[in-house]
C-alpha cells in the first residue's frame, strides 16, 4: 500500500467524506459541484467557468490519458479543488505529457481522491450546490473554524480573477468580433478563429466605447464563472452595446449577461448542469441536440422583447434566447464542446450568418 496523506471534504450541511489528498496539499474552500462528463477532465480542469468551485467528477477513473499542453482551455486552472474517486498514476496516451497529480501540484490545486463520489453527487443532487472545505486536518477543525471558513468564502470576484489584463487580437480575414473575455474558453475562440473570424479580445470590464472603437461587426460574450448578477457593470456595458443595434451574441455566462441586459432574470439551478449529455430542443425545428453544459445559473422570466429559442428537454429550462427585433442571440449550452459532443458546432455558423446578414442589410 502506498503512503497517503489523509484528507476530508466537509460540506456545509455537515456531511463529511474522508479520502486521500493529492496535487497541491493546502486547505481549500469552494462551492462543490459535480460534472457527469466521462471524458475531458483536462478541459474541465482548465475551464475558467469553474473558478471558485470544488469540482467532483462522477466518472470514477480520472487521469487515464494524462495531461497535454494542447487541450488547455485557459492559461491555468481556476478551480479551488478537484475530487475524484481514483486518479490515474500511470496515464497513457500518445499526447500525454504529464500526469494529473503533477499538473494539480504545479498549479497549486488541492485534490481529493478515494471518496465515494457517487454518494457526494447524491448529496448535492438532493440538497443543492453547497460550499465545502477540503482539509488535511481530518477531524481537527472546530465548528467555529468551519463556520468562519464558509462565511468568508465568496465567489463574487471570479470574473475579475479569470479575465485578461490587456486586450489582444487574433487575426482573421472574416467577420470581425469584439469578444468580451469574462473567463472565456479557448475552445470558443478556436471555433470562431477556425471560421476565419478576426477576434478583438477585451478584458471583461472594458467600456462599450473602447470596444466600439475597434469597429467590430458584432459583439461576442463567452462563458465565465459565477453569478451574472455579481457583475452589473458588464451587464450595463452589454445593454449599451445592444442599443447600438449591432449584433450581440453569447454563450453560457454571455447568454445570461445578455438576458439580464434585455430585462430578463437569472436564477440559480439546484445543482447546475454540468456534463456532456444534456438534450436541448430547437423550438423552431423540433430537433434535439446533445450538448455540453456547464452552468449554475439559468435565464428565467423572459421580457416581452425576448423569446426562447432552445429549451432543455430534461427540465424545460431555457437554453437559448433571441431578441424579437434586434440581432441579439445567445445560447446557454456550449457549441464549442471541449469537452463534450460536437453536435451543435453549426451554432457558430449560425452566429456568423446572422452577423453577415446584418452587415449586408446595413450596406443596402
Amino acid at each position, binding site marked *: *500500500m502506498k503512503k497517503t496523506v489523509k484528507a476530508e471534504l466537509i460540506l456545509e450541511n455537515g456531511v463529511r467524506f474522508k479520502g486521500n489528498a493529492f496535487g497541491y496539499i493546502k486547505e481549500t474552500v469552494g462551492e462543490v459541484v459535480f460534472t457527469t462528463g466521462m*471524458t475531458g477532465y483536462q478541459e474541465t480542469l482548465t475551464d475558467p467557468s469553474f473558478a471558485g468551485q470544488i469540482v467532483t467528477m462522477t*466518472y470514477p477513473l480520472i487521469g487515464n490519458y494524462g495531461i497535454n499542453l494542447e487541450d488547455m482551455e485557459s492559461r491555468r486552472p481556476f478551480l479551488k479543488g478537484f475530487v475524484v474517486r481514483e486518479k490515474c498514476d500511470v496515464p497513457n496516451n500518445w499526447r500525454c505529457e504529464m500526469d494529473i497529480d503533477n499538473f494539480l501540484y504545479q498549479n497549486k490545486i488541492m485534490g481529493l481522491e478515494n471518496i465515494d463520489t457517487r454518494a457526494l453527487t447524491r448529496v448535492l443532487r438532493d440538497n443543492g450546490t453547497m460550499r465545502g472545505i477540503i482539509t488535511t486536518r481530518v477531524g481537527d477543525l472546530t465548528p467555529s473554524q468551519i463556520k468562519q471558513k464558509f462565511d468568508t468564502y465568496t465567489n463574487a470576484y471570479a470574473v475579475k480573477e479569470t479575465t485578461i489584463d490587456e486586450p489582444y487580437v487574433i487575426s482573421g480575414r472574416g467577420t470581425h468580433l469584439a469578444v468580451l473575455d469574462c473567463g472565456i474558453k479557448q475552445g470558443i475562440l478556436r471555433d470562431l478563429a477556425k471560421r476565419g473570424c478576426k477576434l478583438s479580445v477585451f478584458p471583461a470590464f472594458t467600456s462599450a466605447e473602447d470596444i466600439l472603437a475597434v469597429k467590430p461587426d458584432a459583439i461576442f460574450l463567452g462563458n465565465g464563472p459565477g453569478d451574472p448578477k455579481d457583475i452589473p457593470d458588464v451587464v450595463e456595458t452589454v445593454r449599451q452595446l445592444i442599443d447600438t443595434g449591432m449584433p450581440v451574441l453569447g454563450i453560457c455566462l454571455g447568454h445570461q449577461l445578455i438576458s439580464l441586459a434585455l430585462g430578463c432574470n437569472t436564477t440559480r439551478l439546484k445543482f447546475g448542469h454540468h456534463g456532456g449529455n444534456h438534450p436541448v430542443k430547437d423550438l423552431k425545428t423540433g430537433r*434535439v441536440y446533445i450538448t455540453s453544459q456547464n452552468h449554475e445559473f439559468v435565464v428565467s422570466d423572459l421580457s416581452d422583447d425576448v423569446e426562447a429559442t432552445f429549451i432543455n*428537454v430534461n427540465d424545460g429550462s431555457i437554453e437559448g434566447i433571441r431578441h424579437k427585433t434586434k440581432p441579439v442571440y445567445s445560447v446557454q449550452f456550449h457549441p464549442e464542446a471541449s469537452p463534450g459532443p460536437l453536435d451543435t458546432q453549426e451554432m457558430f455558423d449560425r452566429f456568423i450568418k446572422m452577423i453577415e446578414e446584418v452587415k449586408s442589410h446595413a450596406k443596402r
Partner: protein
Amino acid sequence: MPRDNSIKKVLVIGSGPIVIGQAAEFDYSGTQACQSIKEEGIDVVLVNSNPATIMTDLGMAHYTYIEPLTIDFLEKVIEKERPDSIIAGMGGQTGLNLSCELYDRGILDKYHVKVIGTSIESIKEGEDRDSFKRLMERTNQPIVESDIVTDVDSAIEFAQSIGYPVIVRPAYTLGGTGGGIAHDEAELREICTQGLHLSRVGQVLIEKSIAGWKEIEFEVMRDGAGNCITVCSMENVDPVGVHTGDSIVVAPAQTLSDREYQMLRSAAINIINSIEIKGGCNVQFALDPNSYNYAVIEINPRVSRSSALASKATGYPIAKVGAKIALGYNLDEIKNAVTGKTFACFEPTIDYVVLKFPRWPFDKFFGAKRTLGTKMMATGEIMSIGKSFEAALLKGVRSLEIGQYGLERKSSSARDLETLKKRVVTPDDERLFDMAEMIRRGYKVEKICQITGMDLFFVHKIANLVEMEEELKTMSLDDFTEENLTYFKEKGFSDKAISRFVGCTPPDIYALRKKWNIMPVFKMVDTCAGEFEAVTPYYYSSYDSENEVVVSNKKKVMVIGSGPIRIGQGIEFDYCSVHCIMALKKAGIETIIVNNNPETVSTDFDTADKLYFEPLTEEDVLNVVELEKPDGVILQFGGQTAIKLANFFDEMHIPILGTLPEQIDEAEDREKFDAVLETLGISRPKGKGVWSVAEGIETAEKLGFPVLVRPSYVLGGQGMEITYNDDQLKMYLSDAFEKDSKNPVLIDRYLCGREIEVDAICDGTDVYIPGIMEHLERAGVHSGDSISIYPPQNISDDMKRQIMDVTKKISVALKVIGMINIQFIDFKGELNIIEVNPRSSRTVPYITKVTGVPVIDIATRVMLGEKLADMGYGTGICDEPNVVAVKVPVFSTEKLPQVEVSLGPEMRSTGEVLGVGYNLENALYKGFIAAGMTVPKAGSTIIATVGSKDHEAFVEIAKRCKGLGCNFIATKGTARALKEAGIDCKLVKKISEGVPNIIDTIRSGVVDLIVDIPKKANNKKSDGFKIRRTAVESSVTLITAMDTFDAMVNVMEKHIDESKLDIFDINRDMRK
C-alpha cells in the same frame, strides 16, 4: 412525430437457435422489442425457430410461430397472418438477412408489408462490403485499405499490392465466421477459400491488417426526425485482431482523450445520419494509438451483442427504444424508463466501470485450437461492474466459473517465460493469465504492451493486481489491519482469493471483515451517474461508503441465475429463472435476481423487482442475502451454477425453497443415490465409482464392455465416453486421474436402448409429469444432443405407467419439492434409470411450449407450499396433443477449429430448434430444415463411410435411399458392403490413398449429405475426424448416428411437399 397509427400488426423475426456469434442477446432484445410494440396496442406476429427463448413463450407475442427461419416458411406466416409491417433489426444477422431476402424476392411487396425502422436500403448500405465502402467514401470516413474479391486469385493479387498480413472477412456471415488473418499466400488461399464458401453472396473482403490499433465501438440511436444519441462507448482491451466477441471489453472507453472520443462519436453520428438509420446501430472503429488516424471497421444497423451489453452497462434499453422509433416516435417523445422522468433523448453517463468477459467452450472441447482471431469462439459472456478497473476485472474473472479467483493460473505458472511470451503475442483464452504470469516474473510491463498492442493503462492495472497478489503471499492472517483489508476489498479481491494467497480459509477473512465491519454497499445503475433520482432497482456491489438499496419489509424471494451461456448450460436456464420470477410476482412476492450474464432476459432491469448484477460465487451472493434477508432462495432454475451453492447456503442457514441441499446431494452422490434406488427396487445400469486405473479395469471386466465412463459431478456430459475395450479404458482413466485425482471416475455398463426423459414436478407427495420425451438416437448420445420427440411415438402405455410410477417413487423418496429431471433407458422392455437431476433442466422450455403446461409456474408455486392436487393441473401425466413436436439440436462446431463433430456422450450442441407437425415425419422435416440441414431428394448424392460393425444396419437404410433415387459415394469398406447388397456406388479414396480423395469430393460441393458413423470420436488423426471437420466447414449436412440417418430416410420416404405443410401458432394451434 407521434406513433404511426397505420401500424396495426408487426412481424418480428427472431434469430433462431443459439450458435456461437448469435446467442441469448437476441432473446433479450427481441423480447424487449415485442413488449415495446405490444404495449402500444399493436399486434405482434413472431417467427423464431428457437423454443428455448422467452421470446417464443406463450402470450409473449399475439401470434407465435416456432417454425424454420426460411423464406418459404416466413412467407407462409405472412400469408396467413397478413402483418402490415415488418421490423428488420431485432433478430440479429439472421433476422436482418431474412428481411432483406423477403424484400428482394418481392414477398413484402406482394403482401403489402412495409418495413418499419431502418429501411432495407439503409441496411444494405452498411452490410454489403462494396456499398459500405462507397458509403464511407461519401461520408468522408476513413476505412482500412481493402478490396472485395469473388475468387482466390484476385485475393492474392490484391494482398500482394497492399502487403501481408491481410484480414479476410466474408460478407453476410455471423460472428465473423469464415474470416481470419493471413500472413502469407498459403494461409490466404486457405482462409479465402473457406470464406468464399461461407458467404451468402460469395464475396470476401481482403483488407490490410491494422493489428495493434485500439478497437472502439459506439452504440448509436437515431429517430425519424434525425435526432441522434450515442448510448455507450466500448473499448476492447484486446486490440484489433481479436474478434470483439472474444475480447475483454470495457465500457466506457478508458484510454481516449475527449478529442479522440468526440472525433469517433461524431463519425458514428455522421454515418448513421447519412444512411438514415431509424433505431439502433453499432459502429466499430479502429484507432491508431499514436495519432488521430482511425478507420471505420463495420456498422451493424440492428440490435447486436454489443447493443445488449451497452443496454446492460448503462441501463438504457436500446431494443425497446429502437422498437418505439420504428413505430414512429421520436427520441424526445419516449420516456426514460430508468429515471421515469427524463426522456430517451439523452446520452447515458455512467459512474462505474463495466467489463465484459467472454466465456469460451474450451473446458468442453479439450482438443480445440484455442487461438483467438477474427472468428468468434466464445459461447457466452459475463459482465461485471465495479468502481475500478481492477475490481471489475476480478469480479469478471470469478464470474466465469473457471475455478479462478485471482490472476494466478496453474497452467500459466507452469509455462516458461519464452512460452508465455509466444502465447501472449498469439492470444488464446488464457492471455490475461499468461500476461499476469509474465509480470509476476518481472517481465517489463512496457514490453508487454509493445508485443501485445495492449494499452499501458490496462496492463498497468493488471500489474497492480499482480503486485497485490504477491503482497498477499507474504502476509499471514495476523498482518491484516482494518485499513489494509479494506484496501484489498476495494480493489476487488474476494475472500477466497485473499485466503488462497495468504494460506487461510475464506471464513477467516470473513470473520475479520465482520469484526471490522468491512462490508460492500450496493450502488445503482441509473443511466445518469446519480444526477437524477432513478426508479430502477438495478444494483452492483462496491466497497464504498453509501448503500443505496432500500430493503422492503415485503415477503421476498431471491432467484439465483445461471451465469454465462456455455455448452450444457444454455439459455434454457435463463428461461426458467425468468419464469420463476414471473410466478413469484404473480404470488405477490417481491423478487430479487442475482446473475451476471448481460445477454439475458433475466438481467433486464424490469424482469425482477430487484436486479443484482454480481458474480455467482458464495461470497458475492451472500452479500446480497445479508442485505436483503430474503424469506427464501431458489436454486433450482440456475443450472449447476446455482445448485453448486446449495451446501454453502445450508451452512450459512439461508432458507432454500424447494428440494433441500441434503436431498440434492443424495441425488448427485452416486453411492447415496444407488442406495436410494436399491430401497425402491429400481434398476439402473450396473456400475460404480473407481479411484484408480486398475480398479477401473477390474470393474469394467466385471460389468462387461462396452462401458460408459465419466467423471463424477458434471453437467453436460463433460468428459464422458463409451469405451469398448481395455486399451481405450486405460487411456481414458489415466488421463482423467491426471486431471483430477480427488474425485472418482464413474463406470457404467452401457445399455444401447431407447432413451426417455421426463421433467416432473413434485410437491412431496404427488407428482405431475407434463410430458414424456423420447429420444430419437439411442443411448450413448448425450440427451442434449439427441433429437427429442414429444409426444413419444414408441412407448407403450404400460411403459408410461412404469415411468410415472418410478418418477413418483424417486421424487418422493428424494423429498423433491419443485423440479426433477430423470433420464431413463428402455433396454429390451426393461426401464433403467441413468440420471436424476433434482433441478430444472434444458428440456423445460420445450416441454412447456409443446404441452402448454406452465411448468415453472407450477414448480414455483409448489416451492411456495401449494399442493399439486389443488392447482387444477392434477397429478399424473398430462394429456398428449394431436401434434408432434421435435427438438433438434444445433451445433456451432464449424466455428471451433479441430473440435470433434460426431454425436456422443459429451454434449456439443449450443442451441436447438423446434419442428411441429401433424405426424412425426412432418415435424422432423421442419426440425431438420430449421437446424440448417438438407433433406436429400431424388438425385441427391450421399457420401458414406461406416465402420464394419454398422454395415448391416447401414445397408438396410441405404437400400431405401437408393429406392428414393439417391446416389452413393463410399470409401472402400462401405462401398464393398453396399455392392454386396446390390447397391451401386462410386468408390472414393480414403485420405491415405492419395488424391483426389473423400475430402476433395466433399469440398467440391457435389455432395448433399454425409453419413459418417464413427467408431471412436476425438481422434484428430483419424480419417473420420477429418471428414467430419471438412463436412461442417463446408456446410454439408452431416449425420453421425444411424438412428438419425434412419429418421431422415423415413422423412424422405414421405415425399413431403413443403408448400403443403401446416404452420402452427403455439398460442392457438397446438391443442386443437
